[in-house]
């Protein structure tokens, strides 16, 4: 059984307007998304800005209300579980935020930040708590003495590690990482990515990894879902997506990634042109009248593509 | 004490010098004349500016029959007047616009309006106008404050007022210029201000609904009268300009016109110094010492028909029966306590210190502004703390627990609640001074300063007396009629002391009786009454007041006070422009 299964998830935000600020319309931020993640795997969510990646992640962890659909965590539907159970489940899902600067309260010491989840869920004595925090700090590769410092005394990469320490404090099973490195300098990115992979192995974590950088997704993920306007266009293993993209949108996305080999640039440029031409030509076939992708069709056991009914 | 009459005679030599004489900063009303010393020759025409000192604007109800605010009355004075005039003792004379005759039974008055008395629009002032004024005031829709016992004393007025009669039986128009009014009760008060002598122009207001008159443009924007000046224009709340009434019955005024402008008490001095105004009605006495030597004006002075007093709450008001309900157990019920409290305060010092002598120790409840009736032999109760303490000791008010304050005869702590009104700089320290004085004789008094409305609410203006109030300080302006029953009678709501006394009732009654047409009889009655009040002390007067009225040196033929024989139509100026201060 998958650790988490998302079925036809929809998150709509009301748009208010008119004389009385009534609900006029909805932003379909997430509009029918389904995927599942196996224990210990990393699942990548890619898509351009505004495609609903963050909203999906937040809906799972409960930061956004789910309009409809199911989120099954270890078989339990998060929308219907009892409050008590929910608190339990919540411990198992944690989040790493994009911005290491704003995700740590600047007025709190690292010790307090990392201990926050412990204080909420586990009754520990002050000493036990400190021990645990130091342990966690060590785990994320920071000096245990650093717990009395404030976040601003750390570099971006180190802060991201503090965020991770906080996220893993309760031994969660699933970690949702929303663009965990996009705010970091190139040289620091690697630090965090390496580290995330390390603790994944160590703690048998499952990641929902959200990013728009396909290079990083490729590096990190086993499975990938490509989002477009709140829907899926393609879902499959990293291999399948990168070597055998089926949807023109996926193709175009991949073609748009700059090639790091300068010698390929002309070829790459031509390829991009070709893909663009194909995209323009086939747009009608891959998107419905509203310009939204169709629902997913399986083309192999692991690989689904959004195609029109006719195929 | 003295009266305005004396001053009129010997004012000449004093008025100009008072500044120099009073180096010690102490003044006295005797130093002031109420008639302006004329300097220079009158020029033809000219206009003057009259400053209406008021911190609230004039309301603009410019008709004697409807006005309620004092500022309005000051404006009215310039363009309208009563048909009857009175002498310095406030007794009606026969040299006004109308003359009067009294019938044998002293109940019917026959008035004759002068032939040359015409409204500003040229229409004659008629007996019908006079009758009309009574009809309007007596009408049930009348919205002014004039309807009172003076009117109900007219035969048939109450029937008319209640709608039972269509006319007032006691008022008869004999001919165009002759009116006859019959009163129910004959009283000397009739001769001192109790006759309503202000006609209402029927040709203008006759067709209006009574309720609409007071807000009509004929009252507010183009008011009419038959006085020496005519209203030319009005800036509501700010100023009025008047031009002379060529047709004035005493003869055309000498001045071409008058401008009345409202000035606040804070700008009075400045306006006077710069000649912005030529004369004002009431100069704030607290500003006098600093400006006594203003070179371009002469200060006229007269005794104000008013006194300040301290009252003791001795009961409550019975709103059902409309009489006072004395409370024999009132905290202030002990007459010796009240006497002691009078003795404890040094009003001479207060007058000298706070008012530089322009207010002075009051002795009786009839102020010297009524020289015929004020008993200047009666000393009241002089400042004498020793006497006060003795009185208190004797009455059993002694300090039993050594806290410095006296307890009541039962030995219970005595805390007297004293309220006074805010307003003016000195109000608070003055009240505070009284508290201190009482403390000196061992009385514990708590002071609360209240704003006007709250003050009267608590004193019992609405008929509900605040039981928390024991002593209060207030002031009365008194009418030209000396009769004090409206303030101290058992049926008077304004008897805030809620005091009732048989002798008092008797004396008040005697003062209004037909016998009192005899002056000495009436003087004796009021002398006795003044003494009664000094003995009983339901209230005690604290200060009498001077009314100061600076007048620019260029102004000629001006006087304040009554019975001077100088009229506004005589007013003239010696220079085109007001003289400014050096």
């Amino acid at each position, binding site marked *: 059984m998958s650790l988490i299964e998302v079925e036809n998830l929809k998150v709509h935000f009301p748009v208010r*307007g*008119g*004389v*009385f*600020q009534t609900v006029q319309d909805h932003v379909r931020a997430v509009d029918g998304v389904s995927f599942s993640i196996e224990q210990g795997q990393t699942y990548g969510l890619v898509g351009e800005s505004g495609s609903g990646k963050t909203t999906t992640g937040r809906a799972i962890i409960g930061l956004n209300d789910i309009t409809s659909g199911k989120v099954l965590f270890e078989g339990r539907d998060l929308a219907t579980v009892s409050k008590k159970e929910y608190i339990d489940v919540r411990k198992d899902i944690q989040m790493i935020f994009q911005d290491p600067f704003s995700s740590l309260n600047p007025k709190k010491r690292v010790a307090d930040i990392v201990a926050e989840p412990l204080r909420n869920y586990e009754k520990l004595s002050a000493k036990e708590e400190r021990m645990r925090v130091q342990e966690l700090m060590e785990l994320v590769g920071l000096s245990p003495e650093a717990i009395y410092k404030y976040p601003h005394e750390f570099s971006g990469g180190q802060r991201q590690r503090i965020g991770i320490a906080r996220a893993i404090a309760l031994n969660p099973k699933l970690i949702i990482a929303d663009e965990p490195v996009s705010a970091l300098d190139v040289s620091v990115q690697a630090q965090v990515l390496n580290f995330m992979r390390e603790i994944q192995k160590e703690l048998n974590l499952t990641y929902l990894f959200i990013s728009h950088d396909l290079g990083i997704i490729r590096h990190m993920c086993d499975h990938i879902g490509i989002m477009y306007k709140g829907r899926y266009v393609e879902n499959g293993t990293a291999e399948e997506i990168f070597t055998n993209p089926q949807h023109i949108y996926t193709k175009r996305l991949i073609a748009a990634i700059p090639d790091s080999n300068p010698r390929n640039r002309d070829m790459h440029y031509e390829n991009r042109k070709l893909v663009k031409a194909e995209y323009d030509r086939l747009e009608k076939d891959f998107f419905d009248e509203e310009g939204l992708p169709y629902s997913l069709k399986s083309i192999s056991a692991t690989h689904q593509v959004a195609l029109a009914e006719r195929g | 004490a003295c009266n305005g009459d004396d001053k009129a005679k010997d004012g000449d030599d004093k008025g100009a010098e008072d500044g120099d004489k009073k180096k010690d900063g102490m003044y006295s009303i005797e130093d002031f004349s109420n008639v302006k010393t004329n300097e220079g020759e009158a020029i033809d025409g000219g206009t003057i*500016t009259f400053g209406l000192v008021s911190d*609230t*604007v004039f*309301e*603009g*109800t410019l008709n004697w029959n*409807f006005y*309620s*605010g004092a500022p309005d009355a000051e404006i009215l004075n310039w363009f309208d007047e009563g048909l009857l005039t009175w002498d310095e003792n406030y007794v009606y004379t026969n040299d006004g616009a109308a003359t009067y005759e009294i019938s044998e039974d002293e109940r019917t008055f026959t008035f004759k309006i002068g032939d040359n008395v015409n409204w500003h629009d040229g229409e004659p002032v008629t007996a019908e106008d006079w009758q009309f004024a009574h009809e309007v005031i007596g009408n049930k829709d009348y*919205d002014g*404050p*004039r*309807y*009172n*016992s003076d009117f109900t004393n007219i035969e048939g007025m109450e029937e008319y007022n209640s709608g039972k009669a269509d006319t007032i039986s006691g008022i008869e128009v004999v001919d165009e210029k002759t009116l006859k009014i019959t009163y129910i009760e004959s009283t000397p008060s009739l001769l001192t201000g109790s006759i309503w002598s202000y006609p209402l122009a029927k040709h203008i207001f006759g067709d209006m609904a009574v309720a609409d008159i*007071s*807000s009509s443009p004929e009252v*507010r924007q183009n008011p009419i009268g038959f006085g020496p000046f005519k209203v*030319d*224009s009005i*800036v*509501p*709340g*700010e*100023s*009025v*300009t008047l031009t002379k009434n060529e047709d004035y019955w005493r003869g055309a005024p000498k001045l071409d016109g008058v*401008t*009345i*402008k*409202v*000035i*606040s008490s*804070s*700008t009075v001095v*400045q*306006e006077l110094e*710069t000649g912005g105004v030529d004369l004002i009605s009431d100069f704030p006495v607290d500003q006098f010492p600093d400006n006594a030597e203003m070179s371009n004006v002469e200060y006229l002075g007269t005794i104000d028909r008013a006194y300040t007093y301290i009252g003791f709450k001795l009961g409550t008001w019975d709103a059902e029966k409309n009489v006072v309900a004395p409370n024999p157990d009132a905290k202030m019920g002990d007459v010796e306590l009240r006497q002691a409290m009078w003795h404890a305060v040094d009003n001479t010092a207060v007058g000298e210190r706070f008012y530089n002598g322009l207010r002075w120790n009051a002795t009786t409840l009839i102020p010297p502004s009524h020289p015929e009736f004020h008993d200047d032999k009666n000393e009241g109760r002089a400042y004498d703390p020793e006497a006060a303490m003795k009185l208190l000791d004797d009455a059993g008010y002694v300090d039993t627990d050594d806290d410095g304050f006296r307890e009541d005869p039962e030995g219970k702590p005595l805390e007297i609640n004293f309220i006074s009104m805010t307003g003016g700089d000195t109000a608070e320290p003055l009240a505070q001074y009284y508290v201190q004085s009482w403390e000196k004789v061992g009385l514990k008094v708590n002071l609360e300063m209240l*704003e*006007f*409305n*709250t003050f*009267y*609410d*608590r004193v019992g*203006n609405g008929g509900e007396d605040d039981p928390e109030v024991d002593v209060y300080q207030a002031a*009365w*302006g*008194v*009418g030209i009629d000396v009769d004090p029953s*409206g*303030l101290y009678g058992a049926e*008077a*709501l*304004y008897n805030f002391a809620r005091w009732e006394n048989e002798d008092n009732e008797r004396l008040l009654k005697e003062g209004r009786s037909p016998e009192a047409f005899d002056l000495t009889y009436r003087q004796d009655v009021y002398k006795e009454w003044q003494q009664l009040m000094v003995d009983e002390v339901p209230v005690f007067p604290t200060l009498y007041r001077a009314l100061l009225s600076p007048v620019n040196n260029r102004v000629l033929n001006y006087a304040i006070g009554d019975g001077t024989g100088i009229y506004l139509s005589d007013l003239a100026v010696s220079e085109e422009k007001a003289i400014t201060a050096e």
Partner: protein
Amino acid sequence: MWKLIVRRTLITIPQIIVLSLLVFILAQAMPGDALTGLIDPSIDPATIEAMRERLGLNNPWYVQYIDWIKGVLQGDFGQSFRFKMPVSELIGGRMINTLWLSLATLILTYLIAIPLGIISGRFNDTWLDRAITGYTYIGFAAPLFIFALVMLFIFGFQLGWFPTSGSVAPGTEPGTFAYFISKVNHLLLPALSMALITTVSTVQYLRSEIIDTKQKDFIVTARAKGASESRVYNRHVLRNSLLPIAAFFGYEITGLIGGTIFIENIFGYPGMGELFLSSISLRDYSVMTALVLLFGLAAIIGALLSDIILSLVDPRIRIK
């Protein structure tokens, strides 16, 4: 855009009702009433009581309120108890005075604020800026009433340059040039006194707004395009900095209301603020209530105006 106006206007209605209710209850709660001031031995207390009855002052407050609000809905604010004239008429004259005073103050405020703000913002940290900032500091700290008193003292009394009370010289004929001049002469000192104080917040605001805008990327862009410094300021910095000032305009009105009470009181200027204070002490409820309501309305309209102005000048809001 119109939706905004409609919505704001609709919201205004309950605001007005609550405001009127509040004021009315307050008025009723005040000790004394319009006739308390008539205490005078020559006036029969029974007469006063009868007048009170006739004026409905003895009715329960809600009856009085309903009577009153009925009238207001028909545009009738009732009669002034003290002035015995329709409240609307009474206020009418005062309103014009206050309107002129406010207008003059506003004009002066901006006449002072805009150049000072611009100089101070553009040349920040120069001695000129320091002088202006110093002025704003003092202006910020000086209570209006102290400043007004001092102004009155110096220019009204000592130097005698300006009249010290009233709104127009007595006897000047309305409509004439002399009348106009006299009006202007009377409101100059009060308006200037108020403007000198109220302007400082605008100066400060404009200054920091300019300093802010100066550092914006699009200013660098303008320079990169080759625009001269003066063009950068006139076309880009100023326009963008004045926007919040324009939006502030409506709120200035709210600020003026408080100011006029002091100013009119100190300068004896017969306007609504002055009338308000006297109607309070005279317990002239109908006038007082109407005045508060009008001032409230002015504030509401001011806020509305600000929103509208902002949405007119700022395309980012206009679109919505």
